[in-house]
């Protein structure tokens, strides 16, 4: 039966450069490349090519490049080729379309429509190489006022908090959706950087308990891998209510990814699908959420902050207000560009709202209601650079969750095929021969490098504004101006237009 499908990509091999070393064939888990003995040359069948660039990166003579095919259907402004192809695919299988990583559609990126201020003449700028510059930050509930006794001892109640040496954390990615080596890279990098990584819903592998002080343990609707020791191991506990890539739906780790280790870590039988329900079946109200928060606090002797993670959706400000009142210490908001190991395409591409707008709305609402100090706000869902991060902090974020950026440091080329479980970079796979492609020794170093680089850049930009600490930048919307934005957008973001 013909499937009407034509490969998206073409592999261009420069035969003059190819030395037939076969590394492309050996490294492609999708079996696109092969050596043909009769022709004594490499051949390619692009049908399964996902453009992950593994072959291109390893080719020792740069004989390869991958280009988008220029085979085109008849032009149609209403029916772009991708929608026609997706219809063919579904007509053939009857299935829901699956995708991975973040929403790639051409919606506006507000980060790119916001500009940062710099000092001139008055309020002079600061050179971070010469003067102290603070990017350390603390997450958790803050006391409304600070009182001391005559001896200078703190009288106000203090709350459990997280201390971050840099304003970045690695966002939740479960062991299962990503490999053990990816987890080890994140855990070691978080430890070295003095920040935190997040287990996601996959439990904590026994080898990683030693990184517990730099681990945020997640409790999600499937409750996979949750037990007392697990809760006690982490520095904070995150209740996952939603995920930016797929708000309103649960998760599904296919049985093929549930090998011996994943099974043990998640506490489910080997080879069975791990299905996280769409809702927490014990949470139907803010009061229910409060119960879970306090159950977890009780279980960990009120020593650890509790984070509640939600997806950025239409009434996010009201939801955040409820969470702030439910006893959570930190609210994490995940924008619609946030990544995933697998999500239905239609959901990923059409549900949720931009993190920029959600963040601005939540921060404004909590301030208006006078409860901003009750919680810290962490945002994720596509912060792509240090400048995005500076803008996020100025819009009110306390810290940044990085998922996709961290994966890029590990070698991810955003081919968005994680759901295929054959990640050629050893990240989103459990196949031992692929997992070993990610050497944590290299992975962790690249993560550390990336965060150090971003931290330097953050300091540089803060210095330019004459600001020397994250605390002074947080919510400082005067430092931002919009460009090419409507009145409404500026109003939601709470910033003036450039030139104002």
């Amino acid at each position, binding site marked *: 039966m013909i499937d009407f499908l034509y490969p998206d990509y073409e592999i261009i091999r420069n035969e*003059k*450069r190819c*030395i*037939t*070393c*076969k*590394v492309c064939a*050996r*490294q492609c888990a999708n079996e696109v490349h092969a050596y043909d003995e009769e022709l*004594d040359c490499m051949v390619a069948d692009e049908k399964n090519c996902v453009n992950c660039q593994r072959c291109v*990166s*390893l080719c*020792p*003579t740069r004989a390869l490049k991958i280009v988008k095919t220029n085979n085109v259907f008849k032009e149609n402004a209403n029916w772009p080729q991708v929608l026609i192809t997706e219809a063919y695919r579904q007509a053939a299988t009857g299935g829901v379309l699956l995708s991975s990583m973040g929403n790639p559609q051409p919606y506006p990126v507000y980060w790119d429509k916001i500009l940062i201020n710099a000092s001139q003449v008055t309020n002079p700028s600061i050179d971070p190489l010469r003067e102290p510059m603070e990017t350390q930050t603390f997450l958790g509930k803050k006391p409304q006022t600070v009182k001391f006794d005559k001896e200078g001892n703190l009288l106000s109640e203090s709350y459990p908090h997280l201390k971050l040496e840099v304003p970045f954390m690695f966002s939740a990615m479960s062991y299962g959706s990503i490999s053990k080596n990816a987890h080890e890279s994140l855990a070691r990098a978080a430890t070295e950087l003095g920040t935190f990584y997040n287990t996601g819903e996959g439990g904590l592998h026994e080898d990683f308990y030693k990184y517990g002080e730099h681990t945020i343990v997640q409790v999600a609707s499937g409750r996979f891998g949750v037990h007392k020791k697990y809760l006690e191991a982490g520095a904070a506990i995150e209740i996952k209510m939603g995920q930016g890539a797929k708000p309103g739906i649960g998760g599904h780790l296919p049985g093929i990814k549930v090998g011996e280790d994943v099974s043990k870590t998640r506490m489910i039988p080997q080879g069975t699908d791990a299905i996280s329900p769409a809702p927490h079946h014990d949470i139907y109200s803010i009061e229910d959420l409060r119960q879970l928060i306090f159950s977890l606090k009780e279980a960990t002797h009120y020593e650890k902050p509790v984070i509640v993670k939600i997806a950025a959706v239409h009434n996010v400000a009201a939801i955040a207000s409820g969470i702030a009142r439910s006893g959570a210490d930190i609210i994490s908001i995940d924008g619609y560009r946030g990544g995933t190991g697998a999500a239905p395409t239609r959901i990923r591409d059409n549900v949720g709202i931009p993190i920029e707008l959600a963040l601005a709305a939540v921060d404004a609402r909590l301030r208006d209601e006078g409860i901003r100090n009750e919680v810290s706000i962490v945002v994720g869902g596509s912060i792509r650079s240090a400048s995005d991060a500076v803008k996020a902090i100025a819009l009110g974020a306390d810290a940044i969750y990085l998922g996709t950026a961290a994966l890029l440091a590990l070698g991810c080329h955003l081919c968005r095929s994680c759901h295929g479980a054959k990640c050629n970079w050893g990240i989103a796979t459990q196949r*031992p*021969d692929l997992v*070993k*492609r990610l*050497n944590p*020794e*290299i992975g962790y170093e690249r993560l550390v490098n990336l965060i150090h680089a971003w931290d330097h850049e953050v300091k540089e930009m803060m210095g330019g504004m004459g600001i020397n600490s994250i605390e002074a930048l947080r919510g400082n919307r005067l430092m931002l101006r919009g460009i090419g934005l409507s009145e409404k957008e500026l109003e939601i973001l709470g910033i003036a237009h450039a030139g104002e």
Partner: protein
Amino acid sequence: MKKVYVNEDWCLGCHLCEYYCSFANSGESNMIKAFNKGKKTTPRIVVEEGSAINFAVQCRHCDDPLCVKGCISGALSIQNGIILVDDTKCVGCYTCVLSCPYGCIVTDHEKVIKKCDLCASNSGTPACVQGCPNAAIVFEERS
């Protein structure tokens, strides 16, 4: 002494080390020339492939080398800890192939035998180490 070691946990079996080795010893200025027109140059490092395990093996530069002791012509010798072969003396009897417990003496149609010299005749870090995409091959001191 620094030697080349392979950590099989990270060896991908990509065989790039073999190609970088051949290239480094080809005397050519670029890799394409080194393998031009189907030129088959035997590397001095061998990748062993198993179902889930791969690792590269090359001369261990033993302190007590059986290949050198067994050499009938005196072509093999130890110079500063590195075991070298003098091409002009080797007659290709393969007694070293018989002796080496790691199978690291390479037989070759171009020359009589070949073996890893830790890139002593090239420069700096051995080519296999430089070319390994996953840092599975390291050049370091171990005791």
